[in-house]
């Protein structure tokens, strides 16, 4: 290799001392270092060690002549870089040509003209210098090139027309986990890297590129590494044309697993956002509902009062008229109807007041089964009248819980009456009570704020074999009623829910698969 900081060295080779001296004298003092060898072998040794820029070689030498020396110099990679000039008295063309063919750069005939020698030597030294610079520059560019290719975090495959891998960059080696040897010279479709298409050429994504010269692009591809792991890649296969003929393709691929992860995270965040939005909307609906109810409540109190007074007057009036003796049966009927009307009006008002009032519970330790039994007792007449069979499955081991027995009784009466009315004649009323342990509040349809996972609760179920409920969501709305006009105010269930609510429990109604409705009341135990 040329060392830029060392002075250039010129090796003079001649077996004749006088010739050497003359040559030496000619060239000395010109800035380059002169080395001397007495024969071909010495010349080879010295050239290997000193790596001169230029070698002036006599042809006629004993043992190995100049030509042979030159041949050997050019064969040895260590000495190949030195430029050779033949110096000889053999000045015919044949020898000159032979010299050039052996790799010499020039030929100087003896006896030489000193000026000529100097000029030629310096020209060749300059050429040598420039060539060295050029080589250095090329190596630099090559290194830069390599550096660029390596620095890219995109893997690059170069394919020939048959799909054989002819080039891989360091990133490709790194990303596939294969060594260069494992990749080069193999058909790309057999490597099983992209999409795992196996050895089938036609199915391989780059097939269309190599056969038709079409660019193939996949934003959502997958690369299988040597160890079998996979990661998301985006790849692009572009055809290479040489003089308008398809000669191969370049595949560039990029690891997009980070991007995909970011996408997934984005998606998750979006889903959560949606969920939060829904919850917010639901809360808003509840608030609106509560506000409506509140105004209803306030309305109710006023209405109640205003209605009750006239009702009271009417009632007293009816009683008064009833006291008036009359033979007219119609009068009696009228009086009876009026009484009934007053009662109904009163119960509407009462229901409205009940609903609107912020009731307070009087919680005392009690037995829920007892409350149920009391309520059943009160509707017993109705059950018999409608020929409804009662099935009771009350767990005696429930124990004592805090409850307002009066209000809960009201609740059960309401629920039972609804069930009876839904069944009309004949049917089965099933009442169950038990302790349940909630595994997952959400899945049980329970409010996660009231109930926690693993919490024991009392559940009462009332099942009927009636017509079921049409609008599950409306059922708890005040004034929603399916009962024909005159038979129900529709306030019952909303009051019921309010009472359950005050107990910090939950009530829900669902249609049964076998027909009819199922009312489930869940109460906290502690």
């Amino acid at each position, binding site marked *: 290799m040329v060392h830029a900081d060392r002075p250039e060295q010129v*090796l003079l080779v001649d077996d*004749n*001392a*006088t*010739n*050497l*001296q*003359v040559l*030496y*004298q*000619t060239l*000395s*003092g*010109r800035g380059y*270092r*002169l*080395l*001397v*060898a*007495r024969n071909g072998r*010495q010349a080879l*040794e*010295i050239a290997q*060690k*000193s790596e001169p820029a230029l070698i002036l070689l*006599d042809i*006629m030498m004993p043992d190995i002549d100049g030509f042979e020396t030159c041949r050997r110099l050019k064969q040895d990679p260590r000495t190949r870089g030195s430029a050779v000039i033949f110096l*000889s*008295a*053999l000045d015919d063309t044949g020898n000159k040509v032979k010299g050039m063919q052996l790799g010499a750069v020039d030929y100087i005939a*003896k*006896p*030489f003209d*000193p000026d000529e020698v100097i000029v030629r030597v310096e020209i060749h030294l300059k050429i040598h210098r420039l060539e060295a610079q050029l080589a250095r520059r090329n190596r630099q560019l090559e290194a830069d090139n390599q550096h660029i290719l390596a620095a890219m975090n995109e893997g690059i495959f170069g394919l020939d027309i048959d799909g054989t891998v002819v080039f891989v960059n360091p990133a490709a080696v790194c990303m596939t986990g294969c060594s260069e040897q494992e990749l080069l010279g193999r058909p790309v479709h057999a490597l099983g890297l992209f999409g795992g298409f196996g050895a089938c050429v036609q199915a391989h994504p780059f097939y269309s590129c190599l056969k038709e010269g079409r660019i193939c692009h996949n934003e959502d591809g997958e690369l299988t590494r040597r160890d079998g792991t996979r990661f998301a890649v985006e790849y692009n296969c572009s055809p290479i044309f040489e003089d308008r003929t398809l000669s191969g393709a370049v595949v560039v691929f990029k690891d997009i697993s980070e991007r995909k992860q970011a996408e997934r995270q984005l998606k998750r965040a979006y889903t959560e956002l949606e969920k939060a939005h829904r919850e917010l909307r639901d809360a808003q609906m509840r608030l609106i509902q509560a506000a409506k109810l509140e105004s209803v409540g306030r309305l109710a109190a006023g209405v109640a009062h205003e209605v009750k007074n006239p009702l009271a007057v009417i009632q007293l009036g009816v009683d008064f008229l009833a006291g008036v003796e009359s033979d007219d049966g119609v009068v009696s009927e009228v009086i009876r109807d009026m009484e009934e009307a007053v009662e109904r009006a009163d119960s509407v008002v009462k229901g409205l007041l009940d609903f609107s009032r912020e009731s307070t519970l009087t919680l005392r330790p009690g037995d829920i089964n007892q409350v149920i039994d009391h309520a059943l007792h009160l509707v017993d007449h109705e059950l018999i009248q409608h020929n409804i069979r009662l099935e009771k499955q009350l767990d005696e081991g429930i124990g004592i819980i805090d409850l307002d027995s009066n209000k809960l009784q009201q609740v059960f009466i309401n629920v039972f009456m609804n069930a009876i009315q839904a069944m009309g004649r004949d049917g089965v009323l099933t009442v169950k009570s038990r302790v349940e342990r909630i595994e997952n509040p959400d899945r049980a349809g329970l409010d996660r704020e009231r109930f926690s996972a693993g919490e024991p609760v009392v559940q009462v179920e009332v099942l009927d074999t009636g017509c079921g409920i049409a609008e599950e969501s409306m059922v708890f709305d005040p004034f929603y009623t399916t009962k024909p006009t005159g038979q129900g105010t529709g306030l019952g269930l909303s009051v019921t829910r309010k009472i359950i609510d005050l107990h910090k429990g939950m009530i829900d109604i669902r249609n049964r698969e076998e027909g009819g409705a199922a009312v489930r009341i869940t109460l906290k135990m502690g």
Partner: protein
Amino acid sequence: MNQPPHDQLPDDAAASPEESAGAQHDLLPAALSGFDLTAGLQRLQGNRVLYIKLLGRFAGDYSAIGDEIEQAIEAGDRRQAHALVHNLKGLAGNLSATDLFAAARTLDEAVKSDAAEPARLHAAFMVLRTALDEALTSARSVLPPDEPTVRETAEVDLPKSQALELVRRIREAIDLGDVMSIHESAAALAGDTPYTARIGELADAFDFDGLLSLADEMEQKANR
């Protein structure tokens, strides 16, 4: 560093032709029969000392070459004849022994040519013989400067470490073909001693074998 003596001036740019010629002006005549002194000196960058030395060596080494060539021709050994004549031609050229050079070239061609008649060969040889004799005579007339003899160096002892270092450097320089450095090493380590002159002389003559045996000799002496 010691200044080398004038008569052993190294062959580098530091020496100007005038300086080196100053002391030896009278040794090289203005003209020399059979030689083109101007061209010869020019080739040697005006180094008269060297020219004289070379002429002296020519006179010493090539006195018998005429006979050798003749013998080769008469023996029919063209290859040998060619080698000898070729060698002589080169040398003559370097020394600007113009007549000798021309004669040697003619004979060289004749020897090379297969179809040369013996008469032609013989005639060419005769011309060569004449030119050679003339050149040798001229060369002999020019006296080379005194050279220190081997005996002188044998009497002088160098300090052991210096001697061994000098030996090492000489061997290394020969290995690399770097003759120039031998002068510097000798001057640095052998100083005023006759070694410097002797080493310099051998180096100038590119007598590597001579240098190596001197190195061996010095090493033996130092390790004694």
